[in-house]
């Protein structure tokens, strides 16, 4: 047995190791996190699988609808949606042409898969984000509690939570949806919160003075008047969801992201480019439609003095 080096020897040899406690904190966190994930898989694996299955069913159902509908009908429906949102024929024709162009790139099927994932992710984000935004708007304490989590969700690299997500839900669409939701919900929460907080104080006071209950105030005044901000939040959520498609494809979600990924893997710059163009076009389509809806929501909603 060798003699233990003296305190000073250790200090001079390996100051860094000693100073940083030999990295024990990191080791501890790593072990605990792994144990926790294992604990979840062993004890709640079935529940996660059930949740995953339900979500997957919804996703596949939506994908089937998108792929089962005749292309022309789908284009027409998109045009109608754009017209309903904007009341502008040019926009309707523009988005129809844009989506046709994606098909012309040879990426129709992939685009439908991407749209399905995006719609499901955005719907989950809306279901979670708007109520959370309302809660944070009503309580400063809730806001200060939730805000750090939103910061975390927006800054932490998605691969960090993709690893446990893949372990819990398996490869494929579900962890992709989950990652998208985590990444895309914070702006909706923040904008809902901001929108409700910025509703004219006197209008809210008037509603209170006329004896409105909290629920009547929320549904009759605060949400309608915060709607432009909420629509902006939904728009941001859509854009961020589309920004996630390439990362999502890395864990086995198919779609236009996969096209880009394949281009990367095969050193096929051209394929990467058409995948990229398709993503940008999809982003433009959804951005324009939701912006137009937001602008129409804005009408009559600002207080004039």
């Amino acid at each position, binding site marked *: 047995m060798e003699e233990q080096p003296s305190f000073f020897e250790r200090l001079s040899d390996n100051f860094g190791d000693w100073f940083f406690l030999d990295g024990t904190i990191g080791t501890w966190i790593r072990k605990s996190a792994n144990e926790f994930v294992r604990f979840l898989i062993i004890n709640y694996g079935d529940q996660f699988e059930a949740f995953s299955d339900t979500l997957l069913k919804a996703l596949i159902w939506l994908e089937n609808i998108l792929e089962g509908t005749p292309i022309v009908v789908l284009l027409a429906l998109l045009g109608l949606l754009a017209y309903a949102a904007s009341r502008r024929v040019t926009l309707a024709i523009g988005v129809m042409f844009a989506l046709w162009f994606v098909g012309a790139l040879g990426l129709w099927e992939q685009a439908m898969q991407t749209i399905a994932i995006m719609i499901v992710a955005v719907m989950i984000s809306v279901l979670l984000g708007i109520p959370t935004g309302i809660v944070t708007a009503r309580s400063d304490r809730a806001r200060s509690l939730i805000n750090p989590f939103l910061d975390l969700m927006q800054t932490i690299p998605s691969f960090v939570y993709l690893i446990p997500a893949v372990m819990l839900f398996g490869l494929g669409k579900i962890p992709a949806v989950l990652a998208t939701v985590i990444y895309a919900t914070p702006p909706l929460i923040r904008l809902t919160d901001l929108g409700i907080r910025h509703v*004219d104080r*006197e*209008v809210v*006071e*008037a*509603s*209170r*003075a*006329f*004896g*409105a*209950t909290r629920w*009547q105030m929320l549904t*009759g*005044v605060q949400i*309608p*008047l915060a709607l432009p901000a909420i629509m902006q939040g939904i728009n941001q959520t859509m854009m961020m969801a589309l920004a996630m498609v390439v990362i999502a494809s890395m864990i086995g979600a198919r779609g236009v992201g996969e096209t880009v990924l394949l281009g990367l893997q095969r050193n096929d710059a051209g394929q990467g480019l058409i995948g990229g163009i398709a993503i940008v076009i999809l982003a433009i389509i959804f951005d324009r439609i939701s912006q137009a809806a937001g602008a129409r929501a804005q009408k*009559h*909603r*600002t*207080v*004039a*003095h």
Partner: protein
Amino acid sequence: MALIEVKNVTKIFGSNPKAALKRYREGLSKEELLAQTGHTLGLSDVSLSITRGEIFVVMGLSGSGKSTLIRHFNRLIDPTDGQILVDGTDVLKMSSRELGRFRRTTMSMVFQRFGLMPHRTVLQNVGYGLAVRGMKKSEREDRARHWVGVVGLSGYENQYPTQLSGGMQQRVGLARALATDAEILLMDEAFSALDPLIRSQMQDQLIELQAELGKTIVFITHDLDEALRIGDHIAILKDGKLSQVGTPPEILLTPADDYVAEFVRDVNRARVLTVDTVMKPPKARLTGENIERALEEMRRLGEQYGYVVDNDRYRGVTSQERLAELLTEKGATHNLYTVAEEGPTLLADAALEVALPTALDTAYPLPVLDESGKLMGVVSSREMSSVLTPPKAANEDATDEKSDPPESPKAAAQ
């Protein structure tokens, strides 16, 4: 009977108002309270009593606590200390459910910047209080349409507030407040955001509606002219404390302190004060037809002019000189009623502004009548002009300018 009774209400804004209240009660000033505890004194021991059916104006500059005070009535703000009774019920003891019902039925409110819901049409805005109450849509719209008509906005039912001018928007605010049939109307600087012409139109409309509907109105303003114009009683608030409560003439003629005096200095008193605030009982009040008796009476009183009254009805004015002259006429029998000259008269509620020219043209104190022609009192131009001068300023200069009554007996009658 007082409809709203405010008893010693104190409001302190801050994180621990109760502790700050204790310090304040121990004798800290408003400034010391802010410096030492970081708490702002909003209201300090305000007590008021508002009678059913009156327009009660709370007047003060910004920061005087007037908006804070009005928000205590329907508990948009809770007081730190004190009591508020509305129709005998302690508002502060209400549960949130009772408070909701109270706000829906008993009190409604009009806001400075209108507080209209921009995403609702005029009709929907006016019906808001009823919608909150759960009234059916058709009934609600009928009622709302009625009130939109009352404030003169028929035809604008389906417009949005942003499409209307400020004055029209505030009419919508007024209609919304009236539509709930609440007995009490709180108006927080309701006309302050409107331009002067529209403002005076709205004031007229409010006074009209008040006469018609008999609401109790608590009106907040920073404009003394407005307060004097519409208020039955005026409370003047300064730094959260009540300076004075009184009728408009009381405020004008006997300001309680320098602050109020300062305020009333620039008021057009001739427009605000009415004849009945300065009139005096007639010294020589003559009844009966007998001229001799009348002359005797006037001589005894040492009065140059006498006012002839028949069963409380004013018949005319006469002078010693004239009666003496008539008595010297031989053989003629005169009746005092026929001898009395009708002459100019004033209505009791006429503004001095209107009354003064007549008074200046007349040598004797003018008789003041009520609407039924009953003699209420007499008033001279000298008395009128003496109240036109703000109390603080010296009296002399004003008397020089305005009242120079030619007191020659010749000018009497006609």
